[in-house]
């Protein structure tokens, strides 16, 4: 049976490790204190006691008596007990009634319990005449300290350890809940609910940041899928229409007894239809090429005013034929970094679009303005304009407002413009001409030089 999930969370593991480190540190600390008291202090006392015993036994008679007199007040000399016994262990002087039983008289310090209850470190030695000198130092306080340390260990450190683990468990449980929520949301997303987003409580912790990043990815995926779907729908229509026309015409011409002129005409229609289809495919590939392009590496200094004048010249005759006047205002402009071919293509597409929608006998204003961030290429027509709601859509591939479905063209023109502007990091702004549409290409270089 697997351990409950909570014990497998990373936060629990972190809590467990922290608790472990804390416990280890506490253990080391207490062990040190214990060592100091138990071993070190005791050893010091032992050495002191042994030294005293040695000096007493090496002293001569009178000095011994004097020493022992002083020993009446042993505390002043740093030990609690001092006594002199005869060879049969009868007390001769000092503040001890009897030697502790089985106490080795060898000049070395040993532990002893005086009066059955007082812990001491003591040493005893033989005088040359057989008498026994006994010195002892009280270690009650030391023993008490040791007891306190032991108790602290049991009563203090261990509960602290448990507290750390409990806190870890609590945090882990909360994290686990969040992970479970996220997993559920992901499961829903995988089942196709692409509008679902991960819960992010905006607390700016790592978890939330991750969730927000994933949400941004989901937004992008959603956008791309919508585009593909849009392309799929429109491609179906725009590619199949000419091909259907071609097929129908060719099939009809197969019928017997068609005069050669009709066959020729059918072949011409077929070629035209195929060319139209190929044109759509080429335009699509073009957009992909622009979007994936490495063209930024080949950017040069571009004179937008010059481009406007050239494009105006190119499209002049077409506008004339439609009775449309193109008013050009492009005296000069700040240079921008870009790809000349692509920018011409973009500007031409915008103007071409305007010409398509401008009514006869109207004027199109085609100008280069000096904007705050850079030059703006502006095309303004007096046609039906683009309604507010459609302005974002209109730049997508293959979008065509219903009112323009009847017009020739692949609907990719503004898609190309969008791709070129994106590549250059320029912006597009669509405004209301009242009447008509104002289409701005804001060529503000945000590329690092």
């Amino acid at each position, binding site marked *: 049976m697997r351990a409950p999930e909570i014990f497998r969370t990373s936060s629990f593991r972190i809590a467990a490790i922290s608790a472990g480190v804390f416990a280890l540190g506490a253990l080391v600390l207490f062990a040190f204190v214990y060592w100091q008291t138990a071993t070190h202090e005791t050893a010091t006392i032992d050495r002191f006691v042994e030294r005293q015993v040695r000096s007493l036994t090496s002293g001569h008679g009178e000095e011994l008596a004097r020493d022992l007199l002083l020993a009446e007040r042993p505390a002043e000399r740093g030990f609690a007990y001092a006594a002199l016994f005869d060879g049969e262990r009868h007390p001769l002087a000092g503040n001890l009634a009897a030697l502790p039983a089985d106490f080795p008289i060898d000049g070395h310090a040993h532990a002893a319990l005086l009066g059955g209850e007082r812990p001491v470190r003591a040493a005893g030695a033989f005088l040359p005449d057989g008498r026994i000198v006994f010195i002892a130092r009280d270690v009650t306080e030391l023993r008490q300290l040791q007891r306190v340390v032991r108790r602290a260990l049991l009563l203090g450190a261990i509960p602290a350890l448990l507290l750390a683990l409990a806190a870890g468990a609590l945090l882990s449980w909360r994290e686990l809940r969040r992970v479970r929520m996220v997993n559920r949301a992901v499961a829903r997303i995988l089942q196709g609910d692409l509008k679902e987003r991960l819960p992010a409580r905006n607390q700016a912790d790592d978890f939330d940041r991750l969730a927000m990043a994933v949400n941004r990815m989901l937004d992008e995926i959603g956008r791309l899928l919508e585009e593909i779907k849009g392309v799929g729908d429109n491609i179906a229509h725009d590619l199949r229409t000419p091909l259907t026309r071609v097929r129908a015409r060719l099939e009809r011409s197969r019928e017997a007894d068609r005069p050669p002129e009709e066959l020729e005409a059918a072949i011409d229609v077929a070629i035209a239809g195929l060319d139209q289809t190929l044109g759509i495919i080429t335009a699509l590939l073009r957009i992909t090429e622009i979007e994936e392009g490495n063209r930024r590496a080949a950017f040069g200094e571009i004179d937008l005013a010059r481009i406007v004048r050239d494009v105006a010249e190119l499209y002049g*005759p077409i506008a004339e034929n439609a009775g449309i006047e193109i008013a050009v205002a492009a005296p000069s402009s700040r240079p921008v970094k870009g790809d000349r071919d692509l920018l011409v293509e973009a500007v031409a597409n915008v103007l071409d679009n305007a010409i398509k929608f401008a009514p006869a006998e109207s004027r199109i204003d085609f100008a280069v303005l000096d904007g705050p961030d850079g030059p703006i290429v502006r095309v303004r027509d007096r046609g039906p304009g683009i309604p507010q709601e459609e302005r974002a859509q209109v730049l997508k591939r293959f979008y065509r407002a219903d009112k323009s479905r009847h017009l020739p063209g692949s609907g990719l023109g503004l898609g190309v413009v969008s791709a070129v502007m994106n590549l250059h990091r320029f912006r597009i702004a669509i405004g209301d001409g009242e009447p008509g549409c104002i289409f701005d290409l804001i060529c503000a270089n945000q590329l690092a030089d």
Partner: protein
Amino acid sequence: MQSPTPSQGAKILLIEDDGETCSEIRGALGERGYDVDDSATGTAGLNAARRGAYDLLIVDRMLPELDGLAVIETLRAERVRTPVLVLSALGAVDDRIRGLKAGGDDYLTKPFALGELTARIEALLRRPVETRATVLRVGPLSLDLIDRNATRGERVIDLLPREFKLLEYLMRRPDRVVTRDMMLEDVWNYRFLPQTNLVDVHIGKLRRKIDAPGEQPLIRGVRGAGFMLVSNPDAAKI
């Protein structure tokens, strides 16, 4: 040289591995009077190009054994200066640039109109009239490059700058098919523009000025290909 027919008898080497495309092109060029050989691999093509003295090479990019660009680069390194037309299904701008950098003189993307192919072949076989003369003359037309004016016979023609550019281009390629793509690329230096009838409209305006009512039309449309400026308007239509 001004002749109303294409370069008959010119020797062309076609290096193309797709059988059907190969026979289509051979057929079309054969009908035009060209003498066409073909190779199906890069190495065979390279060897053939070295041996035979061809007037023009048509090289497909995707070839077995040795790819088209490598063939062209090798020939150029060996100082073979025969004009080369590159054929490719790869139509991206970068591909075109690579093809021309490798030593190609022109680049056509598949699928292409046969009229486009033959027009470009002609353009490569008969280079434009590169004359230092300051006045171009084709038939009754006369174009003064310094004073920037044009006349047809006695009649002075008032041309806009863009019309002048276009007429100069046509007058340097008399009696040759000039396709819409060629004009867009060479006269205006653009490649991907909406409204392919752009050129038609420009030509239309020019025609109205050049071919006044009652005069023999000098600018003729060529079905499936493009336009042509004829030097002898009285000669039979092609």
